[in-house]
């Protein structure tokens, strides 16, 4: 199949279907209602299930049910809607179910606005809901990568029996880019008979629940979770290194939409001789902690910068990773404003000065 031009939101829906996800439960919210609209058209065509839930609370519990019944299932929402899913996310993680959730983050807090933001980083990577659980969090930067991540999300969720959360923003959800669905191969769903509620024919009954009367068992489960998250860090931590090969002086850390702006900025700055590159986390949890620490320990790297569309959330993980070895430069736009390449370039140039780096060839 040739590349086709597709809106991010619709590509998310199509990617799920191609990944064998034939069930979608969701509640409309800008800027991603198009996912549900697309699913309401497409799923009946392929014999799938589309239900417009009465709320995000209900949608998240529907995917809890459907996932427990052993099928691939997805819901999508945007910031306030994701907050309403907090209880269910905790239940899904606690019941060890695979489910895929997409949060197209918008300006916040509160009702906020509908424009792009990265203000839900903490909520995504530090739990959001109650208790010690983590989602595996993917943060693609292009429509194509969103498609790939959605298609990978299902097998990942099944590998860990854990919810996988994808975060993006209205920029990616609303823009059209060429998409090549054939670039990613789908992994078929593993057998679910060991845990899913498919009817207890020819096997002992399966029970999906997350209540522990005996605190010792609850503790044991929490220790298992620790191991699970370690395994994620070891096996499924993804990031992209951009222009980090030639011993750059500065490493910029950015993800999602912001990373695209940074990419352009680096391209421009490199033309002027600035030696800098980018570490772009693709998984926000697990976070490329080790790689960042290693970079901070090289002789050539002398400065880090973080660009976010938030007050500074990921930067906490970056500062910890690099042990606050250098002050970390931070630039942000917020409330729905996407930083422009120009202002990022200006900021980074200034950082070169402030940190006393070589900068442009003189």
């Amino acid at each position, binding site marked *: 199949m040739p590349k086709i031009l597709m809106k991010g939101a619709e590509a998310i829906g199509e990617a799920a279907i191609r990944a064998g996800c*034939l*069930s979608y*439960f969701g509640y409309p919210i800008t800027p991603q209602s198009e996912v549900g609209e697309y699913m309401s058209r497409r799923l009946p065509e392929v014999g799938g*299930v589309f*239900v417009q*839930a*009465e*709320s995000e*609370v*209900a*949608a998240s*519990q*529907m*995917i*809890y*049910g*459907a*996932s*427990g*019944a052993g*099928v691939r*299932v997805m819901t999508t929402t945007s910031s306030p809607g994701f907050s309403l899913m907090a*209880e*269910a996310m905790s*239940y899904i993680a606690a*019941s060890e179910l695979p489910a895929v959730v997409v949060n197209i983050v918008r300006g916040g807090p509160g009702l906020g606005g509908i424009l792009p933001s990265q203000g839900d980083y903490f909520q995504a990577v530090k739990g959001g809901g109650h208790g010690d659980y983590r989602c595996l969090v993917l943060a693609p930067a292009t429509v194509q990568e969103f498609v790939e991540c959605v298609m990978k999300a299902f097998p990942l969720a099944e590998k860990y029996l854990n919810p996988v959360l994808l975060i993006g923003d209205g920029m990616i959800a609303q823009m059209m880019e060429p998409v090549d669905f054939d670039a990613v191969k789908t992994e078929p769903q593993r057998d679910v008979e060991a845990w899913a*509620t*498919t*009817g*207890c*024919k*020819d096997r002992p*009954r*399966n*029970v*999906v*629940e*997350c*209540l522990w009367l005996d605190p010792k068992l609850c503790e044991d489960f929490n220790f298992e979770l620790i191991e699970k998250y370690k395994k994620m860090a070891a096996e499924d931590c993804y990031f992209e290194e951009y222009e980090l090969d030639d011993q750059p002086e500065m490493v910029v850390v950015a993800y999602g939409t912001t990373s695209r702006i940074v990419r352009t900025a680096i391209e421009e700055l490199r033309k002027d001789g600035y030696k800098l590159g980018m570490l772009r986390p693709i998984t926000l949890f697990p976070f490329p902690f080790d790689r960042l620490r290693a970079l901070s320990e090289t002789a050539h790297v002398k400065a880090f910068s973080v660009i976010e569309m938030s007050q500074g959330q990921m930067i906490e993980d970056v500062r910890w990773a690099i042990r606050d070895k250098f002050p970390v430069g931070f630039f942000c736009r917020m409330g729905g404003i996407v930083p422009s390449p120009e202002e990022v370039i200006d900021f980074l140039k200034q950082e070169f000065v402030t940190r006393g780096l070589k900068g442009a060839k003189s």
Partner: protein
Amino acid sequence: MKTIFERPQSMTKAETHYCPGCTHGVAHRMVAEIIDELGIREKTVGIAPVGCSVLIYRYMDTDMQSAAHGRAPAVATGVKRVRPELCVYTYQGDGDLASIGMGEIVHAANRGEKITVVFINNAVYGMTGGQMAPTTMPGQKTTTSPKGRDVAQSGMPIRMAELLSTLRTPSYVVRSSLHTPHHIIQSKQALRRAFQYQLAGTCFSFVELLSICPTNWGITPVQSNKWLEETMLPYYPLGIFKTPEDK
């Protein structure tokens, strides 16, 4: 010797954690009996609520799933829609279904989900220690209505069967009780019919069962049955409120 009454096959061997006399046990047993009678153990999935019956998944020897407090109808929707061949029911208390879960039950009923809802109305929050429920009777003392439910502050008890039967989507809605053998027999028939409607793919079915909570009512089980009869029955009339054949 022929056994004419024993523990149903579809129950596990676990003893329930319910207080002496609590009619949750009777309702559990009847659901299991119907599963046995209809031969659907291997295709049934029950959805447990949060409430005293949260542990129903330990007692039913079928696949079971739990739901967050109040959300069982949404979880059931998720299961049933993706596996329509299964028989899916929820089992919910009045705090669960009529308070926090009001949105989910109304919408599941209105979408006409082909599920069965067993609704245990005991006029109180059992599990958390006897707080006022939406179904608590006027004047009934609970831990959060220490002077008795004040209808000027908290309104009248909600009658779920009546409320759901106003929806235009076809459904089977019935209220029955568990306080005498006679009523238990009627309840069993209502439950059977409810499951049959589901199996036939006909409609959403809803059985409200008036039930006792001796512990939180602060009286004996036998006194509780009397209180139910005298106080609850006049306000919660029994009967079939709606059938899919209506209108």
